[in-house]
């Protein structure tokens, strides 16, 4: 499968066989072998049973919730992440370094802790929950709570992929646009936005992928009602608890395909966007 196509130069570097061999072996042992166990176990169900499991109304409802809240969270992150990233790169203000350092925190915090903390703050008796409750806004135990948890865990991905892209923007292009009589808004829309769009999409895709699989934080802030607030990961766990390993693997495989497919599509779109941008220059 992997054969060297061309020697980069006459004085080729050593270590190709060793490093590639190790890479493939380690990849196979840690990732491919276990995942093939998953595929085979799900395959053992037979097509009919597999299809029945993954298209059951309750399961479909859980996909809708999982992908819906994940998309919403990734969109919120794309919008506010863009604002945050722009602020961090372009503006100078007191506390900027602190803000910058905090961005990675959701990545490092255990998801169960994030979930418990969000539930404590946003439940009707919590700090912010008691403010929101009289306004008729229920956060915890509703899809809004799930969205909030997914926004928290996806935040670093958007900001961190956007920061270098914004920093890379060439001021000359912006200045040129301005000197040609473009308004600031036109510059933003026609020049700045297209150039950071690929990075924004990468960040969006990463935040989305992370959100789809999330379990630890969501179970604390969701009411876990079948058909309403039950995410797909919870359904997998609950199938396992009912000794239905086959059903659990079927849903797992389905989710794996959907999220991998989404990643591929978004990566494709991103490549398209960056090519368009380069051609436009």
């Amino acid at each position: 499968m992997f054969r060297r196509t061309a020697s980069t130069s006459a004085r080729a570097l050593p270590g190709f066989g060793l490093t590639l061999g190790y890479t493939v072996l380690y990849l196979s042992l840690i990732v491919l072998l276990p995942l093939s166990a998953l595929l085979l176990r799900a395959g053992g169900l037979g097509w009919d049973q597999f299809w029945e499991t993954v298209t059951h109304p309750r399961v479909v409802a859980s996909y809708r919730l999982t992908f819906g809240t994940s998309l919403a969270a990734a969109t919120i992150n794309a919008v506010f992440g863009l604002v945050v990233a722009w602020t961090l790169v372009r503006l100078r203000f007191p506390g900027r370094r602190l803000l910058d350092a905090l961005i990675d925190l959701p990545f490092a915090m255990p998801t169960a802790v994030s979930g418990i903390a969000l539930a404590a703050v946003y439940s009707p008796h919590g700090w912010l929950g008691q403010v929101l409750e009289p306004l008729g806004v229920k956060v915890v135990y509703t899809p809004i709570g799930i969205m909030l948890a997914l926004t928290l865990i996806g935040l670093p991905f958007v900001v961190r992929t956007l920061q270098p892209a914004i920093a890379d923007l060439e001021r000359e292009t912006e200045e040129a646009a301005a000197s040609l009589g473009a308004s600031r808004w036109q510059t933003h829309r026609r020049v700045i936005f297209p150039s950071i769009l690929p990075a924004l999409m990468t960040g969006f895709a990463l935040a989305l992928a992370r959100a789809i699989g999330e379990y630890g934080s969501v179970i604390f802030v969701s009411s876990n009602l079948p058909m309403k607030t039950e995410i797909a990961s919870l359904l997998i766990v609950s199938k396992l608890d009912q000794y239905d390993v086959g059903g659990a693997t079927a849903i797992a495989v389905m989710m794996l395909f959907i999220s991998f497919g989404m990643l591929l599509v978004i990566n494709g779109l991103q490549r398209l966007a960056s090519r368009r941008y380069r051609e436009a220059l």
Partner: protein
Amino acid sequence: MSLNRSWLLSSTLALMAALSGCGPADGAAAPSTAAGKGRGHVTLLNVSYDPTRELYEEFNAAFKRQYERQTGQTVTIDQSHGGAGKQARAVIDGVKADVLTLAIGYDIDQIARRTDLLPTDWQSRLENNSCPYTTTIVFLVRRGNPKGINDWEDLARDGVEVITPNPKTSGGARYNYLAAWGYALRKFGHDELKARAFVKSIYKNVPVLGSGARDSTITFVQRGQGDVLLAWENEALLAIAQLGADALEIVVPSVSILAEPPVAVVDKNAASHGALAAAQAYVRYLYSPEGQRIVARHYYRPYQPRFADPEDLKRFAKVETFTVNDVFGGWPRAQAQHFDDGGVFDVIQNELAQGR
């Protein structure tokens, strides 16, 4: 190249060895092994469900003292707690449990059926269907009972929010569900359709389905959700003791279900490391006067109340109970009819979700 390949092979082997060999499964990370490993030492693993944490903490200490006195052997007891279904599945997948103390016989049945770890007639090996203690389902309400909840019917009223875990994943939740169903059967003269409608109208009032009994208790007490929590009596008494007698009170319904959490020795696991005798002594000690006393102190109804402290017994309200065997023909039937995928509970949830 061959040098590279052998290096590759040996480094891979080293990695695998590192992963399988030096794990603290029997190494540094376990405080239990620090206690001593000489001759005459035995380790037991008790795989249990959620609300027994406090009970077994005290019981294990008492058993340790007693067993050491009697046999001269020192014992270390490791505990694992979690939802009953999750725990049973972990044992099937390879957790080396020596003793099972789960919520429902059905889950131990599953282990016996799917593995050869213990015989299928495990439940007849100890007195009282292997249940050294029982409990029942009661209501936990806010202080002063503002919604006036007195019996099962009040749970089906409009405007009452009921907190109970998900019966698919929680043993306690299955008792809650069956208790309501059993009450309805009595009330409506064994009309299954009416019972189903009654249970459905209760679940219509459930805003949060927790994954386990503890999860639901925290939702009700800490997060302030709902008007009434369906809970095991032992869990409700413990919640009041630990989380505030000034905020909560117990309501005992006119009739409820007898919850029978069984215990069993996992013969094959225990025998594999010479702990069979200790494991058997462990479950038998639950039936001893001292064991029964501890059980009652932790809010479980002892099999033989005469051994318990009368003060502890006063905390249990008089309540008429029925059993799963009487009303539902045993756990396998109840499970298949109500809780398996596509069972009555699923159908009810589907209808509720579609607003029917």
